[in-house]
């Protein structure tokens, strides 16, 4: 089967985790925006085999996104300035959520907005749809209104999270930006406003320059850095936040293999998301699930939850 995945996970290891009320059959989901709603990876990954599918950020009426070039390759990473292009929540409900539900996928919807109201409206529109949890993105560096600016101040974080909290009883995951002085302060604000779990990190704000053309590579100038390059920053923030709050964490940032995923769990994550690595290896998620189970078996770990925050220190 060519470069396909070898599914050799030991069945003896218990792989299920609970992410703030969200039951996941294993700790691995995808990072929002890197997997669409799963369909495009359908030839490579059975969406039901993942702990969850996290969909691309969705807004109320859809956004056009930014001009191209939207990506740039950087050392062990990439920049993107997609700009949250999406066809709006109605399209997601009509086309993608039923498809995911039919296949038995656990679904996390990543929610975006230009305003506090828009976040709430998106959640309200989804309350009757087959959604297992929301991930509120207060950390996208690629839109001018909303997004990251909200996620950088405790006041606005509390405001948006508490309004989202009031709009749903479903598990509410709040996604944090790494572009702050003290991520634990933001984390505490989100938790105090009602977040059931936190996900981190979103992308680091970065830039690439084309020296020959003397222009930024990205049409928008700056973009979000992801991939292996950011893993040390992500691990550090997961560790800091794990020590600072009591809710479970969804760790991400450069996870490319099972060892990376284990590192995030040891640092305090309850579950992990695979993002940029999907682009490199479309079987990445499946191979990571298998590899984590193998790691557990090799280390005599019967339940993957034993790894959470188990860093010796």
């Amino acid at each position, binding site marked *: 089967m*060519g*470069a*396909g995945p070898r599914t050799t996970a030991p069945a003896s290891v218990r792989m299920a985790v609970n992410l703030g009320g969200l039951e996941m059959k294993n700790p691995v989901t995808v990072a929002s*925006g*890197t*997997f*669409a709603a799963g369909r*495009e*990876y359908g*030839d*490579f990954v059975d969406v039901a085999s993942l702990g969850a599918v996290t969909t*691309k950020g969705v807004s109320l009426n859809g956004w*056009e*996104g930014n001009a*191209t*070039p*939207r*990506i*740039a*390759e950087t*050392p*062990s*990473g*990439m920049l*993107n300035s*997609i700009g949250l*292009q999406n066809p709006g929540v109605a399209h997601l409900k009509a086309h993608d959520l039923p498809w995911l539900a039919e296949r038995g996928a656990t679904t996390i919807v990543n929610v975006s907005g230009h305003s506090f109201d828009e976040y709430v409206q998106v959640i309200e529109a989804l309350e009757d749809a087959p959604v297992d949890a929301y991930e509120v993105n207060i950390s996208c560096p690629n839109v001018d209104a909303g997004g990251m600016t909200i996620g950088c101040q405790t006041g606005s974080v509390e405001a948006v999270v508490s309004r989202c909290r009031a709009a749903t009883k479903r598990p509410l995951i709040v996604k944090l930006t790494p572009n702050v002085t003290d991520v634990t302060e933001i984390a505490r604000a989100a938790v105090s406003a009602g977040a059931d779990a936190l996900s981190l990190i979103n992308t680091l704000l970065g830039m690439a320059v084309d020296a020959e053309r003397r222009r930024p590579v990205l049409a928008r100038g700056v973009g979000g850095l992801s*991939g*292996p390059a950011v893993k040390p920053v992500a691990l550090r923030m997961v560790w800091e936040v794990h020590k600072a709050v009591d809710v479970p964490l969804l760790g991400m940032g450069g996870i490319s293999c099972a060892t990376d995923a284990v590192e995030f769990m040891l640092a305090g994550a309850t579950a992990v998301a695979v993002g*940029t690595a*999907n*682009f*490199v*290896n*479309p*079987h990445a998620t499946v191979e990571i699930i298998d590899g984590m189970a193998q790691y557990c078996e090799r280390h005599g770990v019967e339940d993957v939850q034993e790894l959470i925050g188990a860093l010796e220190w």
Partner: protein
Amino acid sequence: MALVNERARILANGEVGPNLYLMELAAPRIAASIEPGQFVHMKVPNMEAHILRRPFSVYARDAAAGTLEILYQAVGFGTDHMTRIEPERAEHLSGAELIGPVGRAWQQPAGARRALLVGGGVGAAPLFMLCEQLVGAGVRTDVVLGAQTEAALACRARYEALLDAPPRCATDDGSFGREGFCTSLVEEALAEAAAAGEPYGYLAVCGPEPLMKIVAGMAAEAGVPCEASMEKRMACGVGACLSCVVDTADGKKRACVDGPVFDARKVVW
């Protein structure tokens, strides 16, 4: 057609023109199903820090032998690195990985009886399988090729072997065929065909964007249905990441799966 991620052994890799290289890969599953205009998204072997795959159109395939050929130009780190890959003898080499066959193939109108293919630079390659298909279907096919020099017309010999009339060529330095840009040849071909009362029913163009824009304009003017193959920076190559969008009359479309071949009239150039 289902996508696969196929480990592909590199069978041959050599220079075939100024900064132009031909790579032959063993990838039987993709070779069996790929259509003209589709591409492969390649994980170039032995690159660690340059993490993204590179998209390449397929120049030729041999379904029986299970092989593909790619004609490529060294323009940056990845393609430059590719030029130094030696064909693999040893089993322990990691090999390339190809996602494919990706994208929308050329879709010539059903009734077209004459076709004009216009290839600028390496753009000549993604048109070759289309040319074979058209010739095989009995469509009278003319080809215009442009390049900087005679040596850069790396696909010319294959087109000559395939076609009754040799391709019309233009080179920037006049070392072969017409001196200057190939657009004048396109204009003449369109005019001649119209004058002869045997107008083209289909035009396919691949090359630098400014060339494609001009040719698309000429086709529109002449009322000839035209398709163009668009190049955009790609991350996923399967339609998931939205990095590769092309502005079209129907909104932003993904070059990787809604293209790379687009109806040229729909593209907002």
